[in-house]
């Protein structure tokens, strides 16, 4: 069977995808690093040469800062699986969490942030 993004996966008519989700994570069901759906992650450019294909795929999709949920969607992996694998990559130093909380926009007050959002929406081309 070919996935949406053109990858070939083993698929059994009765059993579904031959590799079950939690097999990819060696049975782990929770990530070691706390990640939210909209946590922004980015590849550091420092990764092992021989990466598991699934990990390599995840790494490819965070070349630019991307939310966890977007990496999951583009890799075709469930969110929890993506989080566990991202967590592994973070611990290897191959991926880091974009520390949004240290940014100028965030040190602004929440009112200012909502106002910025409002201004942005009003200027949104329609």
């Amino acid at each position, binding site marked *: 069977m070919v996935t949406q993004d053109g990858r070939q996966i083993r698929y059994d008519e009765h059993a579904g995808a031959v590799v079950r989700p939690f097999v990819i994570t060696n049975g782990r069901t929770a990530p070691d690093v706390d990640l939210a*759906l*909209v946590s922004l992650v980015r590849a550091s450019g420092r990764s092992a040469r021989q990466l598991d294909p699934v990990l390599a795929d995840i790494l490819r999709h965070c070349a630019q800062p991307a939310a966890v949920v*977007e990496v999951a969607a*583009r890799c075709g992996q469930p969110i929890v699986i993506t989080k566990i694998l991202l967590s592994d990559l973070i611990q290897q130093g191959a991926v880091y969490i974009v520390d949004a909380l240290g940014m100028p926009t965030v040190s602004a007050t929440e009112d200012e942030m909502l106002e910025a959002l409002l201004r942005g929406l009003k200027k949104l081309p329609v």
Partner: protein
Amino acid sequence: MGSRSFPSEGQRTAKAELSQSAPLALKLLVAGGFGVGKTTLVGAVSEIPPLRTEELLTAAGVGTDSLDGIENKTTTTVALDFGRITFPEAGLITYLFGTPGQERFWFMWNDLCIGALGAIVLVDTRRLRDSFGAIDFFEHRGIPYVVAVNLFDSAPVYPLPAVRTALSVADEIPLIQCDARSRTSARDVLITLVEYLLARRRAGVLPESSLTRSSP
């Protein structure tokens, strides 16, 4: 680089570079019954075609009266559609999440709701009761929301006060009409939501921590 003695130097440099440009991701929810137009609305304003992803939730006998224990524990897959709007000037990325149609499952999805700025409850006047669950949920969780009546071509148009009464939505909560297919209309719903969030904050309703993207 001279400072090889610090193993995290490269990483810190990368972070320092990013602090110029890295945006903050915000989260908004679009909820409502099955087929009410959640993904349509997300797609209307999103800068990318809506993406679909899945989450595996552990559901212990959800929606049944069974008192059995762990043998009833199953993994449920819920699908989630989302879109994105980037505001480069403001340094903000907004993710819009269409909550899954199987509402009894997304209610359990803490990660989806924690840290959400606010929500849009979409309503179809032919199936008002499909929206009750979402309204109750946001009320209970203290997530601010606005209600948008999606004007389906074939649906009867009721005066908004009548819809408000039927939904038992408090007067201070914005209730508007929209066409989820229209980019302008969908954007206006978002504007209504953000204006409402601001008004609430100015009235001192929202706690300071509302934007904190804390973990469950």
